[in-house]
């Protein structure tokens, strides 16, 4: 069930999972920061952090210690309560929304079924969109609580941008929802199993080598969704909130030390949600092309012998498959940041309202008409 569970065992397991997914998210951030710094250095023909530890990996540890031991200061003119609450709130929407993304096939042990996701919710998409739309508050709270003009202007820009692109983001997913006929993310992943199959007007065309992934049905939706998630996570080319030349650093100008790190974790959390959703909607989720869940379970059974070990094998392999796709999208996020220049503000608004919104609307209507025609004229 979708509730917290009926027995104390189920409730305990669910609580542990909540902590685990949160820790996974937080632990991924230092690695992403390292990737971002080394990656940007690679793109710009520099070295990047390479002195502390092997490949500069211990630089993260040094950074964490530095962040923790920095002086804790708050602006005098600001609102102390809001100023301290904002970074904490920045973590919450990203962490809760990431809980709903399914990461592997359910693990079956001793008659119990453990879902490899924080919690299963039947309207996963609506839930994730709803929770992540709350992120605008943290930016506004930070900007207003800092009591500085630069912070407030940065917060206004960032939140106006997030609200504008939320429309295009929501509409670009409607085509996907129409296509699969469900809000449930796990069911979507299950529907993307097997080879690519189009059935229309009574004919069925099956591809021999392409997987049945959402990108082949919704290419326009995929591009719109990916572009809108860049704007939602406030990253280049949409990081108008951080126009250094005119706004210093946007809404977190007055923040330092660990408080700023928490905003960072929130931003990377939004990147992770975006990558997880891209994987789930358009790239088959945790599925592996050319091999089904049952076949993988059978391979595990042949290799390891017992049913329990085969189930663990199945879960681990699909978990790795999910994380591979997930990492590819995270790398695209980082690569785009160091490749494209920033938009001007009016260009940003034009792109959101005059380009992406009409395209998303047209995509929705076209998908609806095609799905109706395909189901109506078969008989």
């Amino acid at each position, binding site marked *: 069930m979708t509730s917290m569970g009926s027995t104390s065992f189920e409730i305990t397991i669910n609580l542990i999972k909540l902590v685990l997914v949160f820790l996974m998210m937080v632990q991924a951030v230092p690695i992403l920061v390292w990737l971002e710094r080394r990656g940007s250095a690679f793109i710009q023909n520099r070295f990047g952090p390479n002195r502390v530890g092997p490949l500069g990996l211990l630089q993260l540890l040094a950074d964490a210690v530095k962040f923790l031991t920095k002086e804790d200061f708050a602006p005098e003119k600001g609102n102390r309560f809001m100023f301290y609450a904002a970074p904490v709130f920045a973590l919450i929407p990203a962490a809760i929304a990431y809980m709903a993304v399914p990461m592997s096939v359910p693990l079956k042990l001793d008659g119990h079924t453990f879902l490899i996701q924080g919690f299963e919710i039947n309207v996963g998409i609506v839930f994730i969109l709803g929770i992540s739309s709350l992120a605008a508050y943290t930016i506004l709270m930070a900007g207003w609580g800092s009591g500085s003009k630069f912070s407030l202007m940065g917060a206004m820009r960032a*939140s106006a941008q997030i609200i504008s692109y939320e429309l295009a983001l929501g509409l670009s997913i409607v085509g996907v929802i129409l296509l699969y006929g*469900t809000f449930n993310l796990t069911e979507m992943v299950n529907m993307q199993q097997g080879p690519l199959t189009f059935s229309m007007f009574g004919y069925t065309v099956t591809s021999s080598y392409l997987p049945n992934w959402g990108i082949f049905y919704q290419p326009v939706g995929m591009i719109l969704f990916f572009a809108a998630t860049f704007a939602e996570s406030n990253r280049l080319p949409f990081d108008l909130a951080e126009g250094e030349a005119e706004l210093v650093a946007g809404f977190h100008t007055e923040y330092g030390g660990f408080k700023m790190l928490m905003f960072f974790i929130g931003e990377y959390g939004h990147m992770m949600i975006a990558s997880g959703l891209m994987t789930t909607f358009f790239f088959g989720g945790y599925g592996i092309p050319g091999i089904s869940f049952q076949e993988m379970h059978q391979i595990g059974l042949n290799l390891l012998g017992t049913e329990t070990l085969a189930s663990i094998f199945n879960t681990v392999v699909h978990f790795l498959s999910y994380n591979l796709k997930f990492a590819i999208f995270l790398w695209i996020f980082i690569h785009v940041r160091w490749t494209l220049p920033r938009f001007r503000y009016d260009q940003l608004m034009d792109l959101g309202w005059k380009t992406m919104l009409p395209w998303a609307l047209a995509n929705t209507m076209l998908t609806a008409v095609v799905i109706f025609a395909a189901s109506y004229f078969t008989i």
Partner: protein
Amino acid sequence: MTADVFIFWFLAILTIVSALSVVLMTNPIYSALSLAMTMVSVAAIFVTLQAYFLAGVQLIVYAGAVMVLFVMVLMLFDLKNELQAFSRGKFTGAIKVGAVGILAGLIVGAVGSFIMAGKSGAPVTPEASTSADATKALSEHLFFNHVFGFEALGVLLLVIAVGTVALSRSKGGTHAKH
């Protein structure tokens, strides 16, 4: 005390406290943020009632879009704390007394009808249904039974949007030279 009861009381108290602080806070920005908090906790109550779709829509539309705009506009003003939470005067006093009377009547009515229903028989238990069915049933209600009302509401919202644009652009709008 089971987990369900605990979650219900936690959410109920959270909702009521944040709803009260909308009225009692003297700073308008705190009031607006408390209203957002109220909406989030109402959405959480929808989740415990297994109305997942409604909970999501409540979050996206009210908490995520409408209240963010409110907070944004409020933060642009240079607002000071009000000296007192309630205004004074005979006319507003009469309105306050009337509002308190209506609230008391509502509470008495709700408690009374609850007691009467308790006497008349077993409490009404909704049929067990999965949330996917609930979403489907909701859409069937909206688009089959109430399609004309739904379309009329859509036209009304469009009229409001066009009217707002027309008002803001008349006499040069925000760039008018007085």
